């Protein structure tokens, strides 16, 4: 059984009188340890699919099962609990809480877990070490560069030891050099820590670091090779 099973997933939006259906009967299996990148033209439902796997959006029909739990059937409250324990989310624009230090930002998700303060502290320190920011723990987001902020965002996503980490264009707001650093980091986290990742990107070079590359078009998923992906984009 796959770690993430997506079955017959459909999602529509109403835009004025028009009904748009970016995802229609989508099926996908994600195995534990997979690093999946998703590409495709704007409006093809990449982020929508990511949001539904994250449990922050709901499909019109279909089912998503993560590690045996059908999250599409959970209530809002239960879904929040599930996210706290099983999901790490890396945002494009970092979305750190500006009044909290890097340490406190990383600590946030772990505050919701039933673990001791000592264990929490250990996990935060390890997460910051994993992204190479142990020496910036006391810095506020405004005192960090864009790349450092994104690394704090990544540390926050992995601190709770989630089942799956999703990343919505994690390098979208970074310059080329910083983007490469983040790509290396994400690849290392997947290889060394075995973290299952699902990433949306517009950049074929970023997509190429994934072990599986998906292309979304007209509501359907096509799995491609790396060179094909670059050609399509």
């Amino acid at each position, binding site marked *: 059984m796959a770690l993430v099973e997506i079955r017959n997933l459909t999602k529509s939006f109403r835009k004025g009188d028009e009904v748009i259906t970016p995802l229609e009967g989508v099926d996908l299996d994600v195995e534990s340890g997979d690093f999946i990148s998703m590409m495709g033209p704007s409006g093809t439902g990449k982020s929508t699919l990511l*949001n539904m796997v*994250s449990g*922050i*959006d709901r499909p019109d029909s279909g089912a998503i099962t993560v590690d045996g739990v059908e999250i599409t059937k959970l209530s*809002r*409250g239960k879904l*929040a*609990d*599930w*996210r*706290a*324990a099983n*999901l790490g*989310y890396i*945002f494009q*624009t970092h*979305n750190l*809480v*500006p*009044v*909290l230090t890097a340490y*406190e930002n990383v600590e*946030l*998700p772990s*505050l*919701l877990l039933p673990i001791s303060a000592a264990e929490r502290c250990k996990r935060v320190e390890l997460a910051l070490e994993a992204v190479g920011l142990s020496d910036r723990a006391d810095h506020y987001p405004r005192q960090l560069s864009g790349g450092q902020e994104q690394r704090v965002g990544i540390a*926050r996503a992995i601190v*709770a030891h989630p089942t799956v980490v999703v990343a919505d264009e994690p390098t979208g707001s970074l310059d080329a050099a910083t983007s490469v650093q983040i790509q290396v980091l994400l690849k290392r986290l997947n290889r060394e820590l075995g973290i299952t990742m699902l990433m949306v990107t517009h950049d074929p070079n970023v997509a190429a670091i994934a072990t599986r590359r998906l292309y979304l078009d007209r509501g359907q998923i096509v799995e491609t090779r790396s060179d094909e992906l670059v050609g399509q984009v």
Partner: protein
Amino acid sequence: MMRLFGRFAPYVVKTLWRHRARTLLTVGGAAVAMFVFCFVGSVQEGLRRLTADEDAQRTLIVFQENRFCPTSSRLPLDYVGRIQKLPGVADVMPVQVWTNNCRASLDIVVFNGAPPRQLRQARDLTLIAGNWSEFETRRDAAIVGRNVAQRRRLVPGSQFSIGEMSVKVAGVFSSSVPAEENVIYTSLDFLQYGRGQDFIGIATQLEVKPTEGTDPNELARRIDEALKSGPVATTTRSKGAFQTSTLSDLVDLIDFAHWLGYACLALVLSLVATTTVMSVQDRIQEHAVLQTLGLRPSRIFRLVVAESMLVCTIGGLCGTAVALAALGLGGMAIGAEGVTIAFRPSMQLALLGCVISLGVGIVAGVFPAIQASRTPIVTALRQG
């Protein structure tokens, strides 16, 4: 739940501190409103204690009929003996009243002249400075209520003069009846002679204590009936009714002032709610991020209510504390026609201020908290 909230306490405090100017202005506004609320509350409490306590209901005041200002009520002292003969009368104390101002005033000085020994038995006064024996033996001696002493900076040994009156302070007293603490007591003789020949043998009012089991209203009727044939007709009422009637204009104003108190609460409510709504609207995306990280909508609700409660409680407690300190140190009172209402701090008022601050803070946070917890995560994330 409290432990979990405790973990997020730094987030709540830092969030408020992020917009410190807005937070401090709201705290200040809440403090000012609660200050006014406590002041209004203390006046109302002062009036209630003056007119509704047991002593005010049981003690009767005999006053000259159709007279209101103490300067115009003149009862012959032989009325004391006539009243004492009536069945159901335990004690009659003649009181000569002199005030510097018959109209409503915030700095009224009221002299009550009464036989010192009788006064000591009839009133629940505790000397906090000075001694009784000097008061009882020295002709121009006076004991001064704590509030007057505070306002006029009087201590035992001071000479106090106002108008034609000049007394030597023999002591300062406190009383279980706050209004008493605005009065200066002298001997009856001193006040009669001090005011001139016309006042010798005259009292402004007679205070009658009924015996246990006597109906005060029935006794009042019998007193007026018995004195009808005398040189001066009288009106006898319970002390509470007498004081309410004397202060009738002020009572109407104070009754109206309670709306001012409610207006203050509405002001705090709208002020804190507005600040919290603004804070929530600034952080729609931040709350969506927190929900994405796994905070339940109900927890977001509680965090927003906690922010609102904290701002309101800090402001409310500051306002209440300053009001109580001002009331305690200021010794303020308002009075008319020789009757005063004391503005005193009380534990009840302090408790009311705390509970109301907390309650208003919670209520003010509910609407913004609902707004923060119900916004769809994806919609909120796109607003960034």
